[in-house]
């Protein structure tokens, strides 16, 4: 029964407060960041985090309700979401491109102040064939397991979908733990000349994206356990898998150019 007075496949969303609370939340977040910097007070920042996290939870919960429970995601809607996710990942590609540009700007033509060499004088870099190689293997394997999850979903194999997605998430967490250990063990800091800046900005934002991707996959895991996905319609999972492959590819570029070529 059509209660909407329309006859088209598009989803005109109901009124929602989350865009407004999201805007208020991010404004509170950045203002709180300034207050933290200047007055060493975290309260406003914490409030900003809270509002943003509540907004994200409720907004995406509403999307799950509209799609899985209300059936409003027709093929056209799904296609629109696909394009949206692709465009978002493209924007993230350009975000990382800027950090790689900074890295190559400084490493291809090293300044006299750092000794006209790369890595700069006195910087002890990580051995690319130790922990970073392990991290590479972890992420590539997680790319394999997430593809396993997708095929299990498409073949209606529930138990294997759960197992492979669980392994994917575990590998993601494993990467994050090992990388944070590497950060503690590093012989240089972000303040250590341009090498430290480019290294930690690039790998730091990458690590943040790994954590975001892991959370996205974990949400998919919860939804999978609650039977939100069918063998044909599971775009939420596909979006998470695309994002995860993107994170993996960024790491491969980091590993090859920052860790290996840059050693």
């Amino acid at each position: 029964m059509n209660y909407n007075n329309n006859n088209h496949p598009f989803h005109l969303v109901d009124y929602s407060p989350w865009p407004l609370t999201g805007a208020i939340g991010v404004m509170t977040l950045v203002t709180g960041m300034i207050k933290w910097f200047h007055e060493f007070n975290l309260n406003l920042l914490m409030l900003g985090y809270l509002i943003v996290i509540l907004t994200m939870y409720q907004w995406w919960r509403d999307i799950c309700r509209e799609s899985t429970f209300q059936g409003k995601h027709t093929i056209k809607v799904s296609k629109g979401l696909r394009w949206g996710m692709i465009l978002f990942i493209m924007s993230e590609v350009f975000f990382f491109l800027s950090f790689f540009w900074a890295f190559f700007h400084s490493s291809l033509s090293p300044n006299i102040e750092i000794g006209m060499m790369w890595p700069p004088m006195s910087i002890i870099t990580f051995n690319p064939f130790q922990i970073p190689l392990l991290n590479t293997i972890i992420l590539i394997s997680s790319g394999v397991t997430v593809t396993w999850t997708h095929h299990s979903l498409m073949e209606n194999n529930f138990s294997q979908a759960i197992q492979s997605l669980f392994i994917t998430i575990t590998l993601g967490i494993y990467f994050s733990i090992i990388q944070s250990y590497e950060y503690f063990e590093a012989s240089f800091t972000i303040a250590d000349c341009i090498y430290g800046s480019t290294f930690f900005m690039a790998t730091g934002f990458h690590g943040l994206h790994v954590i975001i991707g892991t959370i996205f996959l974990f949400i998919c895991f919860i939804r999978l356990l609650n039977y939100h996905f069918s063998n044909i319609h599971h775009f939420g999972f596909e979006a998470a898998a695309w994002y995860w492959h993107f994170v993996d590819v960024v790491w491969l570029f980091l590993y090859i150019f920052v860790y290996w070529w840059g050693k």
Partner: protein
Amino acid sequence: MHDHMDHVTGLEKRELLAHLAGDCDPFRMLAIKKGPGTYECPNLIPSAFNKRIVGCVCHPDTNHIEYMWLHLGEPKRCGCGYWFELCPIAPL
């Protein structure tokens, strides 16, 4: 995991059922090839409501579309001579 047919609901389900029944355009959004388009036999434009915008491509090599509102019960003639009439259908 459930069978997809047990899983879908709402508009998505109605769209899927229409596709399975052989209807590739359940929302009547695709272009329609013109018929005779005379006053006695106008081009029938499906609509679930009292009015719908119709776009007429008058000749195969025309570079623009003639848009017009079409109201229920009022046949209308495009400048090129083709007649259109709204044909009530149920919404999906």
